[in-house]
């Protein structure tokens, strides 16, 4: 079943003070099936964040429209959880407070909230850090809290914008496995933006490759690696074939934008 429909979505940012306007996305049309894990791969500046923000309802498309579960998107809502590229935990709330934010907004009773919060704290492996402030956490821990915060709300789809972009290689690998594990349990529909080819293959069931700016869909590759996956799959022949193929696609784009 299709959950997300992106129909002819383009985005032009107006220029400031006579500067020419920026065409960030050329019209994009695609759909995402329920419970699918789709990675969006593209070079820096190709409009990945822009596309995700439009689906989240944080930006208006210049043309076209987005529907999620049959409902046209007219603004942000709790049915689309988002994890941002930059750290966006609320610094005045503890880890537990951050995860409970959406639940409080929904008006859940404290007992129920605590129950859900404890569940997701366990899931992202942060037991013992419930009452820490965000500034006391490492970057990786902050993004884990951000993922837990989005999941606790039980959204229909989860939008992740390079959540591990700022982490070192090892930590990033661990976080990818953690995310896959969560996904295996919850089976949410996930849209995951990245510019890391390995990450795109390792996580996704399908990888949408975008061209350099102005972004358009250059290739749509299905990734038929067996699940559940762990880090061993990163050296399997199938994995390396896919990596080669996507590297070629991305390389052309990177070259054309240099």
């Amino acid at each position, binding site marked *: 079943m299709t959950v997300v429909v992106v129909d002819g979505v383009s985005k032009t940012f107006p220029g400031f003070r006579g500067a020419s306007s920026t065409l960030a996305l050329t019209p994009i049309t695609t759909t995402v099936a329920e419970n699918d894990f789709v990675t969006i791969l593209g070079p820096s500046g190709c409009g990945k964040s822009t596309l995700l923000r439009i689906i989240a309802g944080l930006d208006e498309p210049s043309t076209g429209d987005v529907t999620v579960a049959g409902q046209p998107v007219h603004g942000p809502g709790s049915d689309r959880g988002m994890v941002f590229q930059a750290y*966006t935990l*609320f610094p*005045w*709330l503890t880890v537990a407070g951050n995860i409970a934010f959406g639940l409080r*907004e929904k008006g859940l009773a404290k007992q129920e909230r605590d129950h859900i919060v404890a569940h997701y704290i366990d899931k992202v492996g942060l037991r013992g850090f419930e009452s820490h*402030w965000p500034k006391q956490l490492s970057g990786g821990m902050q993004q884990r809290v951000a993922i837990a915060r989005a999941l606790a*709300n039980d959204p229909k789809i989860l*939008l992740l914008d390079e959540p591990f972009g700022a982490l070192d290689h090892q930590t990033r690998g661990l976080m990818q496995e953690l995310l896959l594990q969560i996904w295996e349990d919850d089976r949410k529909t996930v849209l995951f933006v990245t510019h890391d080819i390995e990450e795109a293959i390792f996580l996704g069931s399908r990888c949408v490759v975008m061209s350099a700016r102005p972004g358009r869909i250059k290739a749509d590759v299905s990734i038929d690696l067996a699940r559940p996956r762990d880090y061993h799959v990163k050296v399997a022949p199938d994995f390396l074939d896919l990596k080669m193929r996507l590297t070629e696609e991305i390389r052309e784009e990177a070259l054309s934008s240099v």
Partner: protein
Amino acid sequence: MSQVLRSDAHRRRAGRYLRPLRPVPAAARIALGLLFFALFIAGWSLATFGGFVKPIFLADPARMVAEGWVLLTEYGFLNDIGITIWRVFGGFVLATIIAVPLGIAMGAWKAVEAFFEPFVSFARYLPASAFIPLLILWAGIGETQKLLVIFIGAVFQIILMVAVTVGQTRKDLVEAAYTLGATDLGIVRRVLIPASAPQIAETLRLVLGWAWTYVIVAELIGSSSGIGHMIVDSQALLNTGQIIFGIIVIGLIGLISDFLFKAVNRRLFPWSGI
């Protein structure tokens, strides 16, 4: 050899104080703070006891302490101090009650800001002390007039500074809250206000300091009590010891209230770096 090493370590420790933004140990911080006061009093003593300045212009420290004692024990100066503190806090609390909610509303809703901002910006530059003659006409020389001076001096400053603080809330936090299902009112209540709270408290601390200068001016003109009134009385008698004592008392109260304010802020907002 060890001589060289030791002097090297020495230089490194000394160099620490030259490094920008580098914190100094708590003991050194307190010592440096006290050193200034010691030097200040030493300079003052030198000027007065050394006979460089005539007592009629500047009393020496010993005279000042003696005069202060007389003020406290014989002239009921404690009462004046109490009245002045009451006036400052009364006017300040009144201003806060009105200014903080209005500032938050202006920061949150651009239409509210567009409505009030030009007037408040204009009113902010009206000196509170220039209103004193007018306020005496309207409210007499009673307590209402004193409170109104403080109120006028503080309210517009607080409104504008709170509005700016709230308006500068990180947009990405607001967006994150929206994706978590927050309503518009939820954004104001659960993002804008908590995000700005430490900075608002800091604003209040700053403006409270200014309120002290307004109250003294208000008491210099048309008043029969308070620290400012005592200072005017002492001037008529050329008693510089009393004047200086009054000024130092004001400074001390300011220091204490500032200290308390900071301590409360740290307790209320442990997550904030301010």
